[in-house]
C-alpha cells in the first residue's frame, strides 16, 4: 500500500482562541476558521502572516496541544483530529527551545527513545548520529542552561528527529535571533529536515526566512489561509490586495479601466495586465476577467520591475526590452536609499511616488530628472 503522498493534510479546521472574547474586538467568529492546508512528505511549507493572526494556535492545534472546534487533521494516512498529542506523530517545537533542564544534552535527545523503551544500544547509536549530524558531538554531557541560543535550537531539532515524526511543526524558530545566529539555525533546519522525509510546517512573520526555507508559502490573513503558492507564483500574482500588501513586493497606485485592453492611471495609459491573470493559482477568485470600463481598480507593480536611469539614453543593449516597457520621462528624484536588497531612488511622477532600482555606480543627484522604465509584465490589477 503506497504511503499517502501528504505527510499532513488539514481540511476546514477551526481553532477557538483561548484569549477571552473581550480582547479580540473584531466581530468575526472567534479564532481560526476554514483552514485547509497540505504538506507533502519531505516538503517544507512556511506559514507566513502578521503576528497575532493565530499561526501559533494553528500549529498547536495540529500538534494536539490546543483544542479544535471543527475540521479534520490527517497525518500520513491516520485521522488524528481526536487523538492526544503524544500519538499523532507530530513534533511541535516552541519559539525558544524548551529543553528538559534536569537532563543532559544527550539525555534530552534520547528522551523520545527512552520513553518508547528503545534498547540502549540502538538508542545511543541513534543519538550519537543525530548529535554528530547537527555538530553537537562534543556537547553531549553538557547541561542545557550552559548552551548558546543556536546550540539549544540544534538540540531541540535533534530531539525532534529522534522521535521520527511524520510532521515537524516549528513555531517561529528564527524570530528572536540575530542575523548570524539566524543563518546558523536556518542551516540546522535544512540539515535536520534533509535527513528525514517528514513534512515540515514552519511559522514565521519574516518574508526572507519564508522564502529561504519554504518550498511553498501559505499566507495567513484575517484568521484564515489566503493563499498557498511557491514564492515565484506568490510574487507574480498575489490572490488579493491584502496578500499583495502583506508580501510587500508590489508598489500600489490607483487606476480606472478604459476598456478591455488598457487602464488610465496617473502614470498615463497602461495596457491591461493579461499574463498576470493566466498563471494565477487555482485558489484565485475568477472576478478579474469581469472588469467593466470606468471601474476603479488598484494596480500593483513589482518593485523589481521599475528601473530608472539618468536622462542620457543608454547603450543599444537595453533597447531589446523596450517592447514590454513603459517609459516615463522627467521623473524628479526625491531621495536615494541603500538596502541589502539593492539601491533604490524615490521618484516623483505627477502625483505618485515610486521607488525605482538605480545603478549604484551612477547615482542620479537629488532633484534631477530621470527616465523611469516599467516592465508591464510586472503589473497586476484588482477591483477596489
Amino acid at each position, binding site marked *: 500500500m503506497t504511503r499517502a503522498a501528504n505527510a499532513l493534510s488539514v481540511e476546514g479546521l477551526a481553532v*477557538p482562541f483561548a484569549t477571552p472574547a473581550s480582547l479580540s474586538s473584531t466581530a468575526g467568529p472567534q479564532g481560526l476558521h476554514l483552514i485547509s492546508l497540505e504538506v507533502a512528505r519531505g516538503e517544507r511549507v512556511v506559514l507566513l502572516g502578521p503576528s497575532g493572526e493565530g499561526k501559533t494556535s494553528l500549529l498547536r492545534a495540529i500538534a*494536539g*496541544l*490546543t*483544542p*479544535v*472546534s*471543527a*475540521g479534520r487533521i490527517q497525518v500520513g494516512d491516520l485521522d488524528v483530529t481526536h487523538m492526544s*498529542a503524544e500519538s499523532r506523530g507530530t513534533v511541535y517545537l516552541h519559539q525558544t527551545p524548551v529543553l528538559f533542564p534536569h537532563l543532559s544534552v544527550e539525555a534530552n535527545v534520547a528522551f523520545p527513545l527512552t520513553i518508547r523503551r528503545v534498547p540502549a544500544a540502538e538508542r545511543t547509536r541513534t543519538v550519537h548520529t543525530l548529535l554528530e549530524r547537527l555538530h553537537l558531538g562534543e556537547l553531549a554531557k553538557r547541561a542545557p542552561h550552559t548552551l548558546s541560543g543556536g546550540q539549544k535550537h540544534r538540540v531541540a531539532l535533534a530531539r525532534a528527529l529522534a522521535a521520527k515524526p511524520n510532521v515537524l511543526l516549528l513555531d517561529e524558530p528564527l524570530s528572536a535571533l540575530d542575523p548570524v545566529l539566524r543563518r546558523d539555525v536556518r542551516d540546522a533546519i535544512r540539515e535536520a529536515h534533509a535527513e528525514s522525509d517528514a513534512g515540515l510546517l514552519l511559522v514565521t512573520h519574516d518574508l526572507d526566512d519564508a522564502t529561504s526555507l519554504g518550498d511553498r508559502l501559505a499566507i495567513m490573513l484575517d484568521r484564515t489561509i489566503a493563499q498557498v503558492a511557491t514564492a515565484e507564483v506568490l510574487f507574480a500574482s498575489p490572490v488579493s490586495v491584502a496578500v499583495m500588501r502583506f508580501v510587500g513586493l508590489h508598489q500600489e497606485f490607483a487606476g480606472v479601466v478604459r476598456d478591455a485592453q488598457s487602464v488610465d492611471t496617473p502614470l498615463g495609459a497602461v495596457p491591461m495586465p493579461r499574463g498576470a491573470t493566466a498563471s494565477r493559482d487555482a485558489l484565485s477568485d475568477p472576478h478579474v476577467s469581469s472588469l467593466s470600463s470606468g471601474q476603479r481598480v488598484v494596480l500593483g507593480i513589482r518593485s523589481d520591475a521599475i528601473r530608472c536611469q539618468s536622462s542620457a539614453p543608454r547603450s543599444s543593449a537595453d533597447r531589446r526590452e523596450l517592447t514590454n516597457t513603459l517609459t516615463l520621462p522627467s521623473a524628479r528624484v526625491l531621495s536615494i536609499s541603500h538596502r541589502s536588497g539593492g539601491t533604490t531612488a524615490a521618484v516623483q511622477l505627477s502625483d505618485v511616488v515610486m521607488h525605482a532600482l538605480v545603478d549604484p555606480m551612477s547615482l542620479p543627484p537629488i532633484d534631477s530628472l530621470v527616465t523611469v522604465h516599467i516592465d508591464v509584465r510586472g503589473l497586476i490589477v484588482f477591483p477596489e
Partner: protein
Amino acid sequence: MMPPALVPQSRVLTSPWRAMAIAALAISTVLPFVILLLQSFGESWRWPDVLPSGLTGSAWRAVAGGSLGRAAVNSAALGVATAVAAVCVALPVGRSLAQLQGAWRHVAAALVFLPVAAPPIALGAGLQIVTLWLGIASTSVGVWFSHTVPAIGYVSLLFLGVFTSRGTEAEEAARTLGASTWHTWTMVVIPSLRAPITEALAIAFLISWTQVALTLVVGGGALRTLPLEVLTLVRAGQDRPAAVGALLLIVPAIAALAALRLGARRTDALPT
C-alpha cells in the same frame, strides 16, 4: 457537528482514584478538628466510647477570664510584634544578601538559616545568654526577642529568594530617574513586594504563634503564651482545656491563612 472544545486531557489520575485521594485528604485534614471540638465540649471521653459521654461548655466558659484567654491575647500580640520586627529586619538583610555572589551567598544563607534549623534546646541556651546580656531575660521582651531570631532567619531566606529571582531592574530604573534611596524603597521596592511581604508577615506570625520549645527553654515562663499553656495542660492530662487551647491556637491562624490566600493570588515567593 463536532463535540465541544476537546481539551487534551493532561490529568494523570482517572476519576475513581481521584475521588478516593480527595476523600483521604479530607479525612486527614478535618478529623483532627472534629476530635478537638468534641474533646473541648466532651464531659468525659474514655474507652470504650466512640463519642464523648455528655457535653459541657465549662472549658469554653473558663476561657474568658481564665489563663487561656490571657495567654491567647499575649500570643497574638507577641505574634504580631514578632512578624513586624522580623520583616523589618529581614527585608533589608534579604536584599543585601541578594547582592552576594557565588559561595558567599551560600555561606550567608546557611548562617541565616542556622537559627531556624538549630534544635530549640541548643538555640535556647544561646538566646538565654544574649537576652540575659541585653538585660531582657525572662521578660516578655526577652520572649519576643527569642521568637524574632528564628523568624528573621526564615524570612530573610524568603526575601533572598524573592530578590534573587526578581532582579534589580526596577530599582535601577528609579535610581537613574533621580529617585533617592528613600523614594526608591517607598515608591518602587516596597509596593512591588506586597505579596511576598504579606507572605513573610504570615509566616513570621506563625513561627511565633506556634512556638513552644523556645518559649519553654528561654522564656523561663515569664510570658504565658497559648502554646505553652496548651503544652502544660496536655502534659498534665487536662485534655478538655487543652483541646480548647488548641482550637484557640488553630482556628484564628487558619482563618488568617485563608484570608491571606484569597487576597493574594498565588504567591510563589516561598523559598524553594
